[in-house]
């Protein structure tokens, strides 16, 4: 096995880890605020990738504008869905929220398969990020380095917004105790819409970053969300930093498995989940409730 191949796969692992991190972070925000496990997160990721592709092919809008616009568009779509559909199930058992988002996922993916078929569509790497750096021990394609960097920035910005800004403080208050927050005159239903919008916008942003790497296809998020679920279970619910660290770790481990035992690479995260559940049922960073 060459060093080149090893580092190449570890880089792919790091990139996948970045996507897991952005998706699980969005999941955590939505779960904390709405008490809903958004299984449609993968569909919003796909929506992000597809909107990027459509913006370019229908309106000639390039990658960097898409990186700004697409999260906003996906966030708005999410907010509209929250206001019309999810709102109806808050006072029911949590199970119905999961089933509702499952229906939403089937609908969005089904419609895209119907109109665009399942074949992947390539999206060119933006010219400013083409080429590669020679690091001595490996070639680092500029775009791949950019993806890792950008997702770290996105995750950090979200963490900062939640922990350090006044909107974030209100969001956390609404997560902690919605009734009391409401009594202080805060518009909690409005916050829930914003929270869901931010959560899916993160998935949309991950979709933009993914477009030049993975072919854009209606099913690009379908299997991803299941891996992200496993990542969340391994990390344990509740800790933002914990879920980011777990995502990166599992991404790297997946990359490593691709070098050592390629057949096992798509299973390794699920096997790790199984082992973690045996040893630490609450997850690595979770607390037993």
């Amino acid at each position, binding site marked *: 096995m060459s060093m080149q191949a090893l580092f190449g796969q570890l880089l792919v692992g790091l990139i996948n880890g970045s996507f897991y991190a952005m998706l699980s972070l969005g999941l955590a925000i939505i779960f904390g605020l709405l008490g809903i496990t958004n299984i449609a997160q993968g569909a919003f990721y796909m929506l992000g990738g597809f909107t990027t592709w459509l913006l370019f092919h229908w309106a000639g809008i390039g990658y960097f504008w898409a990186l700004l616009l697409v999260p906003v568009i996906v966030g708005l779509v999410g907010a509209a869905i929250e206001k019309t559909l999810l709102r109806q199930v808050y006072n029911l*058992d949590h199970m*119905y929220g*999961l089933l509702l988002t499952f*229906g*939403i996922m089937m609908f969005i993916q089904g419609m895209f398969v119907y109109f665009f078929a399942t074949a992947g569509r390539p999206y060119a790497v933006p010219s400013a990020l083409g080429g590669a750096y020679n690091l001595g021990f490996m070639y680092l394609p500029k775009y791949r380095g950019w993806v890792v960097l950008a997702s770290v920035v996105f995750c950090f910005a979200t963490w900062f917004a939640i922990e350090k800004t006044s909107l974030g403080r209100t969001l956390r208050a609404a997560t902690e105790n919605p009734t009391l927050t409401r009594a202080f005159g805060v518009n909690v239903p409005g916050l829930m819409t914003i929270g869901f919008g931010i959560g899916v916008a993160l998935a949309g942003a991950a979709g933009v970053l993914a477009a030049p790497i993975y072919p854009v296809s209606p099913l690009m998020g379908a299997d991803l969300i299941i*891996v992200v679920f496993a990542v969340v279970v391994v990390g344990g619910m509740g800790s933002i930093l914990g879920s980011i660290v777990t995502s990166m770790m599992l991404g790297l481990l997946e990359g490593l498995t691709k070098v050592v035992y390629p057949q096992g690479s798509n299973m390794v995260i699920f096997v790790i989940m199984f082992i973690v*559940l045996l040893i630490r049922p609450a997850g690595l960073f979770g607390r037993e409730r």
Partner: protein
Amino acid sequence: MSQETLQSVAPITSPSVKSVGPDLTLVWYGLGIAALLAAPFFFYPIFLVKVLCFALFACAFNLLLGSCGLLSFGHAAFFGAAGYVAGHAAKEWGLPFEAALVCGTATAAAIGLLFGYVSVRRQGLQFAMITLALAQLVYFLALQLPFTHAEDGLSAIPRGKVLGMFDLNNIFVLYYATAAVFLIGFIAMHRMTNSTFGQLLRAIRDNEPRAISLGYEVHRYKLMAFVLSATMAGLAGSTKAIAFKIVALTDVHWSTSGSVILMTLLGGLGTLFGPVVGAAVVVSMEDYLADSGLPINAVIGAIFILCILLFRRGIVGEIQQRFGKR
């Protein structure tokens, strides 16, 4: 998150039916068996076989959700894995129909024990996420193990003979054999939910801390229910594999898990006949949509959404609400 109860899910048999006495249940059974016997003269038997296999599958899923309040998102793993093993047993080992079913069902039970052991300790949404992820593991195994033949799946599985006498290639024999399997599974599950074990499960579902304080080892009972449910899903999967002579990756895919959830939801969560009705509706709908050129998954998604927003009790649940409970 509070997980004590599924308020909106009715107990698996409504108390009103029980209080009238056992004879009414017998009447329902009589009607049901008569319908099972007569059905192939009115509908295409192969279609009915498909309905019965999925009805048994949905009942197994409903067993876990209705009696334990555990929503499994990975039941396709048991259905599909059992199908693969039963198909392999019949085709490569040349085992007869009954033995192949036993092999498939036992496989599902074993996987159920393994998965249940790690998942029943988690509740609610986490349980759903874990079962979904574990089922994906089975999917990837089916993609890569040599005996499952990856994308090709198993095909041309011989149906064999029931009891070594009746040739299952006769579609009426096939139908009645499937009906018998369905009936055995259905009665077993119904008996179980009405037993003390079933009552205990409902007690755990409704108030787990209290069940713990009474000295019950709740995880063990949940695990038993999980394994039973997986076993019945496996029986359904094995029967389907032999009856249709084919097992494919779709049988272990998460969309099949979603499909069985839809059947149960549409028919009525936690009702006795709901899953059967739901299976009939969804199977006929899928058959119809397959030729219509409509985007089948989008339609299923839309039905999911409408069902949750407008009639959560499902078809049987709504009927019970209107007429049953006075």
